[in-house]
């Protein structure tokens, strides 16, 4: 009889409890807000980690899904008067379906070409939002906060709970995927696509499904963002977001799903710690990222992983 509660599940649960607790204990709302953003980023980065770490593909266009998820959910709630949870889900699903139009042709490409195709996509979405989104470059507000029935999510702590709980669920599911033979088939994409083809595997179908999943997670993250800050402007959804997300996954460590939350925490809190440095901030940011990529190649996780190998599975 297999234990349902495994070591890997336990470690996520522990991590989750740590996050929630730190939010409750440090009652500074600013800190909690950054933690919420870290959670949103972690959710989005998880999608990217599945795409890149597990399936070996690359996307520099996640900002497109982030933006579409946010704008669509906001508009569904504002203009169509849909209840926010419905708007969230609908926006996420719709964005994922739209992602298929990019994914199916683009995933036939490899490496650089795929990177640039997704980059182009992300940039187009940004430009379209900038040109045709409500309010144009200035954006729009009055987006309703999340409410479930009579319960309205007002306080930062409620969003903290929401975001990280969603992350917890997504992470558990992602671990399931990674530890299954399906997940191993995805990992085989890294080593020999040719061999997979000769075994009869439809590569495009495999890649497209993971792409869909990653788009969904990012879109969901964007949608929640919209109802949390209640104001949207295109600047948030520029290519810079995609680059940032990529940094999170790479610095966190691409070989493990844990790279997503760890990288997200690191990269989200980093600008905050650099804030006091004023004009040096972009410079230091770039410097830390560059050095981080050069020296922490295998990610922040690697030294951790070596020590805790028994407790953290993929």
């Amino acid at each position, binding site marked *: 009889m297999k234990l349902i509660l495994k070591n890997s599940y336990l470690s996520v649960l522990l991590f989750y409890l740590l996050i929630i607790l730190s939010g409750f204990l440090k009652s500074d709302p600013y800190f909690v807000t950054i933690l919420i953003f870290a959670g949103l980023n972690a959710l989005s980065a998880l999608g990217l980690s599945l795409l890149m770490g597990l399936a070996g593909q690359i996307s520099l266009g996640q900002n497109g899904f982030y933006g579409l998820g946010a704008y669509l959910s906001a508009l569904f709630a504002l203009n169509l008067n849909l209840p926010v949870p419905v708007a969230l889900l609908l926006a996420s699903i719709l964005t994922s379906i739209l992602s298929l139009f990019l994914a199916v042709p683009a995933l036939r490409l490899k490496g650089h070409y795929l990177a640039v195709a997704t980059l182009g996509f992300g940039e187009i979405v940004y430009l379209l939002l900038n040109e045709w989104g409500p309010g144009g470059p200035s954006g729009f507000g009055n987006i309703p906060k999340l409410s479930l029935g009579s319960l309205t999510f007002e306080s930062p702590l409620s969003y903290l709970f929401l975001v990280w709980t969603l992350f917890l669920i997504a992470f558990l599911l992602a671990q*399931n995927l990674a*530890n299954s033979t399906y997940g191993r088939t995805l990992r085989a994409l890294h*080593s020999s696509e040719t061999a997979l083809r000769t075994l*009869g595997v439809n590569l495009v179908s495999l890649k497209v499904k993971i792409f869909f999943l990653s788009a969904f997670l990012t879109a969901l993250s964007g949608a929640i963002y919209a109802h949390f800050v209640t104001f949207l402007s295109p600047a948030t959804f520029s290519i810079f977001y995609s680059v940032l997300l990529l940094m999170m996954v790479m610095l966190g460590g691409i070989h493990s799903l844990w790279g997503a939350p760890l990288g997200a925490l690191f990269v989200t809190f980093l600008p905050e710690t650099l804030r006091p440095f004023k004009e040096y901030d972009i410079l230091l940011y770039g410097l830390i990222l560059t050095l981080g990529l050069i020296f922490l190649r295998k990610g922040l996780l690697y030294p951790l992983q070596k020590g805790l190998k028994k407790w953290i599975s993929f």
Partner: protein
Amino acid sequence: MDILLEVKEIYKSFGGHEVLKGVNLKVREGTIHALIGPNGAGKTTLLNIINGLESPNRGKILFQGKEITSTPVEKRAKLGLARTFQLLEIFSGLSVLENVMVALYAQRPWGMWKSLILGDLNKREKEIKEEAERYLEEVNLLHRAKEEAQNLPAGEQKLLEIARALAINPKILLLDEPAAGLNNRETQLLGETLRMICQKRGVTILLVEHDMDLVMRISNFITVLNFGEILAEGTPLEIQKNPQVIKAYLGEET
């Protein structure tokens, strides 16, 4: 005996250099058919064309009587063609057992959502694990099941590729130099394994090889390919006695 695989008038050139010049080949069902010839003769290219990884400039490939010349690689695998590679294409990063499990998944896939929700508690996971162990046993690799595939010596990696290819239940197995890198004892074992695969499982084997001992010992038929053209074809005995073959090829091999 039925003709399982037929290669008809295949021509292939790479940037002006003609590699295959009107190759014809018939592989009979249930036999071990060897393809020999000097390096650069076009043997791997021919396998690639049969398998679907490359397209011929001219000619046809027929499998079980039906034309598959423009059928994609993945489809050919489903029809019953499997292969191994000269330059190893094992799944590094996965264990030996996992390599075969992936093949078993490929043979009867299930959806992503099932794995998301159930992970390795999926019933099928247990089934394919046991099945994979059986395939590993057949090629004498079961004791290596948990090891990382890329840590195996080259000879055993080739055996792994064979196990993996068998896992998709093929009708024909295309082997590209399976004996390369094996010592005498291992080659003997390989020969027995291949013979057993052919006889017990009824899998037809087309093998590209340089090891003449192995070829002569286990093949039912041999085709000699010399710089893109078929030089001779026949049973091992006939080939050994063929003067053209001796002059062009066998005399240079030790």
